[in-house]
């Protein structure tokens, strides 16, 4: 029941947050915070309850529950949590808290509806990470879309209508392709076993012949690769990220992208082992192109949020690479990259949002030398940029290193070329730091061209540094990254049973 409670808390919390706006405009954020804290308690309880036993080999499922739902099509409300899901839930709930922190002062218009959408998106994500019935999975996959669309469309920046629409159309159309692929599987289960089924475990028994299996697998791949996003399908992401409010960007980059990667690991490969093996070289090529091409695009951006968005695509390339290497290093690497990237990109988006809040621009050309005025914020930016470029000792390094290690075993060429991505990452990360935080002090509010001495008491010229609450958020994320970098065993051990199970079930198929 614990998973159902988790989802219900978020749904009900969202509804309450909306309702509470009528009483006081500060109540919604408080309600949302309480709901999130409760979810965090639930998730932590789930960790503490299970983990000592789980390290011993045995059943990989910590929670596995099933209720009947739509009998006509053999659809069940089936949810399960294993180490992989649990890590994703921890990430989701943690970043949910961060998103509320980011929105705390930024969202002043219609806060009730905002927190409603925020919590409903999170509820959809929690559902995606726990559903083991493919219909239920697809259901939650779509449930998270509308609230996210509204977050971008209502509270977004100047070009929000376009960005929100693009986000929605890309994900919805790829979602329909995914739905058809799911229907095909269910139908072939009917042909082979005499009844419809959307059960994850039962569908693994469906045998599809060569070309058809490849087509259905491609349906899954397109659905997940759009969300990830992988190279040719990524074009919605820079728009959506740069136009979304900070909390929206945090959710998108930190959590929503991970649902695509999760789908690949959980469904796209295990359900179609042969086709996935045949497809692996293509997928790895796509990953390498994504890593290099988007790193290059990131370097060409002047809009700081667009830049971070492109780096996201580039980093998610390592996830794709690791997944299709399909060995223990690759999978663990993909997982660590997902977790670490969730924290770094969220932190960077929050910093970018902080800069935009203070200077009303995202154009890097208009800001420089901020270190002198905003030392704490700049230090944080440096820390997270360095984490993003893969400095040993922080989580991203572990993830990318393991992905490359796994990929090298599967495909030398891809791994060697992809490793160049690490160099590009340092180039664009350090370039941002140098442009924005070093050099002569210059902001759009404080023009040095006109030569006049700015008034001392003008608050715009003395932007406030991080508040205590902000500092707390960033420190928590930084701590997480250091933990992942210094003692990744905690996370690797949690995911190990799942990964071994996935590998073992397909061991004979893939090299």
């Amino acid at each position, binding site marked *: 029941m614990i998973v159902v409670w988790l989802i219900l808390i978020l749904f009900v919390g969202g509804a309450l947050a909306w309702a509470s706006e009528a009483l006081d405009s500060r109540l919604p954020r408080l309600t949302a915070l309480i709901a999130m804290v409760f979810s965090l308690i639930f998730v932590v309880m789930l960790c503490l309850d299970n983990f000592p036993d789980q390290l011993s080999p045995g059943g990989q499922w910590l929670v596995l529950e099933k209720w009947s*739902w*739509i*009998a*006509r*099509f053999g659809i069940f409300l089936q949810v399960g949590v294993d180490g992989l899901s649990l890590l994703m839930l921890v990430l989701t709930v943690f970043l949910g808290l961060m998103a509320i922190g980011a929105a705390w002062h930024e969202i002043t218009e*219609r806060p009730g509806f905002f927190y409603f959408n925020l919590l409903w998106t999170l509820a959809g994500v929690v559902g995606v990470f726990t559903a083991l019935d493919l*219909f239920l999975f*697809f*259901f939650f996959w*779509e*449930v998270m*879309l*509308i609230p996210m*669309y*509204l977050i971008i*469309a*209502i509270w977004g920046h100047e070009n929000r*209508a376009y960005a*929100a*629409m693009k986000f*929605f*159309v890309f994900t*919805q*159309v790829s979602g*329909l*392709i995914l*739905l*058809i692929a799911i*229907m*095909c599987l*269910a*139908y072939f289960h*009917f042909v082979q076993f*005499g*009844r*419809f089924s959307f059960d994850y475990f039962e569908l693994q028994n469906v045998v599809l012949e060569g070309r058809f299996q490849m087509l259905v697998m491609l349906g899954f791949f397109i659905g997940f690769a759009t969300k990830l996003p992988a190279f040719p399908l990524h074009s919605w992401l820079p728009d959506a990220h740069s136009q979304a409010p900070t909390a929206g960007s945090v959710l998108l980059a930190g959590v929503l992208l991970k649902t695509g990667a999760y789908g690949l690991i959980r469904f796209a490969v295990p359900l179609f082992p042969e086709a996935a093996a045949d497809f692996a070289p293509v997928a790895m090529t796509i990953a390498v192109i994504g890593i290099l091409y988007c790193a290059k695009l990131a370097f060409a951006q002047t809009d700081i949020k667009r830049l971070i968005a492109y780096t996201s695509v580039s980093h998610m390339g390592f996830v794709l690479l690791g997944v299709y290497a399909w060995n223990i290093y690759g999978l663990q690497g993909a997982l660590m990259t997902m977790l670490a990237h969730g924290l770094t990109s969220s932190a960077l988006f929050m910093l970018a949002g902080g800069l935009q809040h203070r200077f009303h621009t995202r154009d890097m050309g208009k800001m420089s030398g901020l270190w002198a005025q905003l030392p704490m914020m700049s230090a944080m930016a440096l820390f997270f940029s360095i984490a993003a470029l893969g400095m040993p000792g922080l989580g991203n390094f572990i993830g990318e290193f393991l992905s490359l290690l796994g990929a090298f075993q599967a495909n030398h060429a891809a791994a060697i070329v992809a490793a160049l991505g690490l160099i590009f990452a340092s180039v664009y990360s350090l370039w941002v730091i140098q442009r924005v935080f070093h050099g002569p002090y210059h902001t759009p509010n404080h023009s040095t061209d006109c030569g006049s001495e700015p008034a001392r008491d003008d608050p715009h010229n003395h932007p406030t540094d991080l508040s205590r609450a902000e500092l707390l958020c960033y420190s928590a994320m930084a701590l997480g990254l250091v933990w992942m970098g210094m003692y990744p065993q905690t996370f690797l051990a949690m995911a190990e049973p799942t990964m071994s199970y996935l590998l073992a079930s397909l061991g004979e198929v893939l090299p």
Partner: protein
Amino acid sequence: MTGEQLLLLLPLIIVTATAVITMLGVAIKRNHAVSCLLTATGLFLALLSLIIVAQYPAQEVTPLLLVDSFNEFFTALILLAALAITLFSYPYLCNLEDHQDEFYLLIAIATLGALVMVGSTHFITAFLGMETLSVCLYGMVAYPLHRESTAQYPMEASIKYLVLSAVSSGFVLFGVALLYAQTGTLHFSDISVGITQGIANGPGAEYFIVASLLVITGFAFKLSLVPFHLWTPDVYEGAPLPATAFLATIGKIAMAALLMRFMSISGVLDSAAITHVLAVMAVLSIIGGNLLALLQSNLKRLLSYSSIAHMGYLVIALITIDSAMGGANESLGSEAVSFYLTAYVIMSLGAFGVMMVVSDSGHERDHIGHYQGLFWRDPWLALVFTAMLLSLAGIPLTIGFIGKFYVFAAGVQGAEWGLLAAMVIGSGIGLFYYLRIVYRMITPLDHDDPLPVAGIRDVIPHGILLLLLAALIIPGVVPGALMTLLQSVVQAL
């Protein structure tokens, strides 16, 4: 005719009596409220009488009408929709400076026509029903004729509908005549024998195909499938909103149910030529309807093109009706059609309902700009409208999603990959215009455009919207009950 058979015709008899009583009431003393109340009561009693009718096993009442669970289900759906439209019409028509009472008369008679259509297994009743429905619709479309500032071109719309509807009836009649010439009967099941023999035995095959295609063409006119859709946007735009809603819901249910019955009994789908023609019409409707809807800023026109696309989706399921595969899924195609129709009726009624609530016969709010900022001006109506639009777009938590899922299931079962691809593309395009309306509703309005204040007489329309919202969400989350019901309903076919 025995007493039991009369009992089985109770819904038809009650609706007929309703029309007569309303007419007599108008003859004695005109009173808008009384006429509306009489019609609504009559429709409600007809609905109640279904409880009695449902007790009896399926049987033919004369060779003309078949009263089975299929008939009963669609009768219930039509009566519910007619009841809702009657109640929506009252506040809408209140400020019409003309006689309002005859509108209810037309609703009752048109409903009667629709009920005859869903019960018919014989071309005589099918044709009578179609004409009764159409003739009343001409009147309803042209109803606010004497007003200047109301719905823009009621007369033009009515004439357009009259001419094209007559042409389509002509097609149907010609097809029926050819079928009759070959088989000597007008009963669907006897024709089916002729058709199967005709197709099997070679020389007569073309003859049957042409005849069936003519009938299907006529039906496609009424369902407004591309390329027979040209009248739809103009008629939807020109008609007053209650008439548009009637045309878009009851007009489509009755026609689609009749087509479904004809196809599953007569076995015309055994002919590859006919399936191909239907498939082409489905693809054209989906792509054409969705693309043209993109260009509209008038919501009635937009919904008319979207209805064309939705009828295209419906035809996909219709094609798979007889690709039987045995076992529990024998009737997947028919179930998909029935489910999609039910979903379509709920969501279009909801969308038109919101428009009717904010409009009246003097001022129709049918432009997308009228709904700007609705989310902040009237959150309740905006919520309902958004839910209906998202359901039309096929987003989960709504019945529209389950409907689309059903059609996908039917399509996969029939291995109609090309049609499914068209449906994915069409749904993708559809998102643009549905979301554009949602986006307008959340964009704040810079000038003042006061909505009509909800008074005491708006309680009922708002109540119906609440019911429609519940009917949209509950089967969207727990569709099991409706699926079981439909499974038993289509067993009758």
